[in-house]
């Protein structure tokens, strides 16, 4: 490409990038505005039953209670897709550790061997497996399954620090197929 051509196209590319950024910014602002509207249009109101006063809802941290009550007969299986935010994984492990979830009852399944994850798992006594999943069934999220006997439980945890991760059991057949490998 000649210098002259570059001189013509460079400002155009810059202008296009600027346009894209501006439009993205506008979309975000529009989204924020819509959300503000959504708040105004709240379709329900909550009241304290004893007094019928409008109530403020407590943002309760549930994980400690859950880990305590489900500690004895639970096991957790997590599918860790390649390239997933490492902080998510670390947060999960630390959270479960902090709440004394028995680490030998956690199994992490990964599509490809991930040395860092494997090292962390082994150092903590967490089971680690590499499992080739059927083409087309690979989820792009972390999948968890937590058992307490036969009861599925859906939990989320928040240790007042980001990232917040939900743990859940899905009845989605596709996810169940994936997790069947760990059953």
């Amino acid at each position: 490409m000649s210098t002259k051509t570059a001189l013509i196209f460079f400002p155009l590319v810059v202008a296009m990038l600027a346009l894209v950024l501006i439009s993205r910014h506008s979309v975000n602002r529009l989204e924020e505005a819509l959300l503000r509207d959504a708040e105004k249009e709240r379709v329900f109101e909550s009241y304290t039953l004893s007094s019928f006063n409008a109530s403020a809802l407590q943002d309760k941290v549930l994980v400690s209670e859950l880990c305590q009550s489900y500690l004895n007969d639970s096991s957790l299986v997590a599918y860790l897709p390649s390239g997933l935010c490492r902080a998510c994984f670390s947060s999960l492990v630390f959270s479960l550790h902090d709440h004394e979830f028995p680490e030998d009852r956690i199994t992490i399944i990964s599509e490809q061997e991930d040395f860092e994850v494997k090292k962390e798992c082994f150092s903590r006594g967490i089971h680690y497996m590499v499992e080739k999943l059927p083409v087309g069934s690979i989820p792009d999220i972390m999948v968890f399954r937590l058992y307490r006997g036969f009861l599925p439980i859906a939990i989320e945890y928040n240790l007042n620090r980001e990232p917040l991760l939900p743990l859940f059991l899905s009845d989605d057949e596709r996810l169940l197929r994936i997790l069947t490998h760990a059953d």
Partner: protein
Amino acid sequence: MMKDFCAFLLTLTSSVSILFGVTGCISATTDAEAGIDLRKVSKGRIPLRDIYDKIEVVPLDNAPDGLPLSELSVTADRFLLKGGDRLILSYRQDGSLADSLNPGKAIVDYSVYQDKTLDVLFFAEMRTYHLPDLSLSGRNALDTLVTPTRLARRSEKVMVLPGYKGDKDYLCEYYFDTKKYYASPGKLDGEKTKQIVKGMRFLRSENRLLLLYPNSGLIWVCGEFTYGFLRPDFKRREGDMLEITYAQVADRNVYYSLLLNGEEHLLVYDQTTGKGRLLKTTREGLSLPLGEIRDGINYFCCPADELPRYLTRDLLDSESASAVDAAVRNGAYVIIKYHFVPS
């Protein structure tokens, strides 16, 4: 951002599970799965005393302006009822009016959570994050306006709101921490959707939350941290019309109030034995209504002048009988407390 993502995941999974429940794609894990064959269940008439060992009637103070009462909820110390479409009335256990709530808008639905929180739904549209399909890779987009028809709190942080937009059904959830609504479209369109979405309702039973789908009899049992399905396969004679109008799960039994070919019945299904009993009337010729069951008592609200359908005087003690007479004279509503025979 992460919170959004997480809320998305949680919404998606729970929505998927419920919607798969509607469309019959998951397998239930209860004994009820074995099926209830309405052709084979016991249909004999039995005395009322075989089901209930004690019956009380609590007359209620008249509602302001004589408003009709509906949609009873029972808490530890109160009876809650909708008065017309704008009031929630709170009655004490003795039937005296304790309090009333007028939110200033027409009430579509209300729900009580753990005896401490009252959530009231109004007629409005929710601006939701729309989950365009049930695939995990689908990106969510804002701005699907959905009209909710029911509400119930799944936990302290999540409100479930089934709703519709046009002819399409949506299962929506509101997250208190992110203050956002998420909507997941169902698989059904058109008239069938309208029947299912608008007919489905949240019920409370022994302080648990149930979501009932009237066409299939599917019950979604939702706990604070657990959920599961009761999905009995109702077998019936070809051509029989069946509609489940109410359900309760108490002790080992599932109770269904149902319309079979337009006639009211009570179906008592024992989950442990897999046997059911279909009751149209008792040996005394009385109908068997089903209301909210709590602590072994079936609470049912009706106008006092309808009582002869459900009771005879000899079933009441003298105090209840005179209270009933006064309620009939005043055109009041009453709550019938049916105490189950201990199993």
